[in-house]
């Protein structure tokens, strides 16, 4: 349970890192952002976002702080650390390789 449907294993981490790489975001905003940018193709079960967030924090790749939202509520904002940025670059490169490889395989037309 909890795994986002249709997501390749381990890619949720990458999505989170990428999503907060531009600016700090709270959990709800991260979910919204992923769905919005992917034009609703990627459906993240909202609750399943939190365990990875906590794990990434333990690994030192993201850090959290409490601050106010535009609506004036206190929320926990996550942002990328320097180590997290390096990790993201690494995972992006991995992803590129993997997706290219998969694309090549699936798009090869058999003569």
């Amino acid at each position: 349970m909890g795994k986002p449907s249709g997501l390749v294993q381990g890619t949720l981490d990458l999505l989170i890192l990428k999503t907060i790489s531009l600016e700090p975001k709270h959990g709800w905003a991260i979910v919204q952002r992923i769905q919005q940018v992917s034009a609703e193709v990627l459906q993240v079960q909202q609750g399943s976002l939190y365990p990875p967030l906590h794990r990434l924090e333990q690994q030192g790749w993201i850090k959290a702080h409490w601050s106010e939202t535009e609506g004036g509520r206190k929320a926990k904002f996550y942002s990328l650390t320097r180590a997290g940025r390096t990790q993201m670059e690494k995972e992006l490169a991995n992803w590129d390789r993997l997706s290219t490889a998969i694309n090549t395989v699936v798009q090869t037309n058999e003569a």
Partner: protein
Amino acid sequence: MRWLDKLLLRWRSLFRRHDVEHELDAELRFHLQQQIEENLAAGMSAEEARYAARRTLGGVAQIQEQCRDARAVAVIETLMQDVRYGFRMMRRSPTLPGVAVLSLSLGIGANTAIFTLIDAVLIKMLPVKSPEQLVVITWGAKDWPKIVESHRGSTDRGNGRVTASSFSYPTFRQLRARNSVLSDTFAFAGLEQLNVSVAGHAEMASGQLVSGNYFSGLGVQALAGRTLVDEDDKESAQPVAVISFRFWNRRFGLDPSAVGKAITVNGVPFVVIGVTPRKFFGVTPGNAPDLFIPVAMQLRVAPGWAEHRPSLFQANDSWWLRVMGRLQPGVKLQQARAALDVIFRQSITAGLSSLPPPQEMPAIEVSLGSKGLSDLRSEFSQPLFILMIVVGLVVLIACVNVANLLMARAAARQKETAVRLALGAGRLRLVRQLLTESVLLAMMGGALGMVLATSGESLLLSLVSGGETPLALDLRPDVRILGFCLVCSLLTGILFGLAPALRGTRVDLTPALKVTAGILGAHDDRSKRGLGKLLVASQVAMCLVLLTGASLFVRSLQKLNAIDAGFNRYNLLLFSIDGTASGYRSIRLGTLYQDIQARLQGIPGVRSVSLSQHRLIGGSASTAGVEVPGYKRRPNEQMSSWMNWVGSGFFETMGIPILIGRGISARDSETAPKVVVINEAFARHYFANEVPVGKRLGDNTQIVGIVKNAKFNRLQHEAPPTVYVPYLQNLESIEGMNFEARTVGNPTAIVRDVRSAVAAVDRNLPLFDVKTQVQQIDESLVQERLFARLSTLFGMLALLLASIGLYGVMSYAVVRRTSEIGIRMALGAECGEVLWLVLRETMLVVTIGLGIGLPAAVASTRLIRNRLFGLEPADPLAISGATLVLIVVTVLAGYLPARRASRVDPMIALRYE
């Protein structure tokens, strides 16, 4: 600083759990709120919006649990939970854990104490700069080279080869000056008994002659003052000495002004220039010199060493310096050996008219010196390892008991286990919890054991080092020893906890949940009971090994005690005096010893007094070449004999019977004709069919008597062929002497009178090694006695533990079979039959144990062959004795539950179910 942040996070999630949980709550609440607002904005009703938001978020409890797992502290959290639970269980029934902890602490403590000694002697590196670069330089040859006329240090003859530790001074100079493989080459030589006087107060101390580069070579800095340098190591230099921390403490009370103080060493004035660090003990573990004196001072503090030579510094035939070095970076041992060997050969062959025969040509050997010299290692490693094995076996036996007890308890907790399993607890989780409990037990045992080890350490040390001065070893517990204790505890905890934990959690749920706790055991499968019995059988086997070892040691000691030493050991006081340490030489030395002898004769209660170079059963001896005119030498026979230089009345005082001729008397003075007395063994060997008295030995020495054989240096050895020489006729090779006073009553009663008698001759002459001959012999057997006592103690302990184990398992079996027994009796079984039924099981267990134990005992006692006197390791009496004791005690332990079974009242037993 990333790791620091991480650490803080972990710390927070572990110990500020409530904050973290609270924060997660707030975070999820915010999320819901946000989603609700969004839903409201999309036009849902308030209720709908809330439900929809909860749906999209998912189960809050699950998310929380997953987040906890993600924080990666779950492992530690459950561990702490288990530990808390374990403590609670212990508090509830403290007897079993108490017994377990106590017996484990004894075992672990003893093991740790022994390991501490092993560590100090065998494992620890020298506390100097980069000890791994140090090498020890020795030499070896097939036969003893004739060019080495005298050798001070250690020699070893084994595997058809001699190896020896020391070099001549000229050779050391050559090795030091010409090699390019060692960055430092330094030398030293032990000075055992120095008469050191501080502020007019004389005492014996130990010392070491060291070359000027000794301290710089080892990389040791002075704690106060300075260490020795090459300028100090010249014959013309002012005599200076570096003192050890212990000596500084003992004689100066750590007074900083000790540096610069004048002291006298063997009558020569010296100036203290520095103190070595507290940890530094020289290069031989267990032998810590008090004073370090430049090698160049040898002539002044130990002039006797030169014997007939004008000086040791030019002598090529006297080898007395041990040599160590520090390898240049990148140089291999083999390279160093080859390079040093070239210099060595050139040095020893220079000036010789012909080369020594090839089998006598010594070759350099280089070995790692990071742990210092190995004298102590060879002497103590075997006894320590034997002790460790013995104690290890006892710990194993104790472990088996704890395992059996835990298994019984696991059976009693079967219902609890079944409930937990039924409720969905993972088996692994339960095993982990049970293991945590047993490791907890073991850890508590280990902690208590550590306390026992540190307090029992000095006791063990004095036991192992025997009657001589206790070994100077640094036995303060360090990280390694704590680590050893910890690993020991962990291992034992897992060892005795694993089987019960695995067994205890393999529960067939349906019957376990159905029955009531009381008669649960009746439904156990047989294999479960079989394991307990197998464990007890292994206890019996280990016990047999220990008991056999113990009876061997005891029988060996009995045989040693029954040895006839060849002299009367009772009412004899021994002490040593070294006149050369106070500046007496040759004729004056002889006069001094004669004066003392005469004074002692006058003490009331003294029958007679004599003196000798070697005290009997004192461990030391000399041998010398002899010429026996008319004796046909067998091929390759070394014409040598053991020698003792003795004073007048020696045989009469010691009670050694004179068989033919006369003993040594007062008329055998320096100027009288040279005479010797020989013992039976010498007479038999060299004068098989002749009458030796009146014959000559060498050119001008006459044999005047034959005495009965008496043991020389060790009780265990046969009396060797021995020549007794009047010491007055050989004053040049005499140094310290041992006095023997035969008393009418208790010999220790005259010690005060002896001291004042000696002081009356010379106030500055210290007496040392004062003891009775009986003590002297006891001390020579201290290791044997130690082994006999400890192995008996541990054997008894093992027997007790095994009996308890057997008793426990059989009692448990009887309880479980109560209803069966009841039925049997109701059907007409006799008491005796029931008794036999249970006893038979005991016998079976014991027999299996003996079946494993007997071969194991025969095999393992071979390890102690060289520690036994007059016995074979497979001594039938020892093995059958041990077996008998074991059978009697274990059958007795099994009889008690059997008798209880035979008295079962069928009515009660049947109602039981």
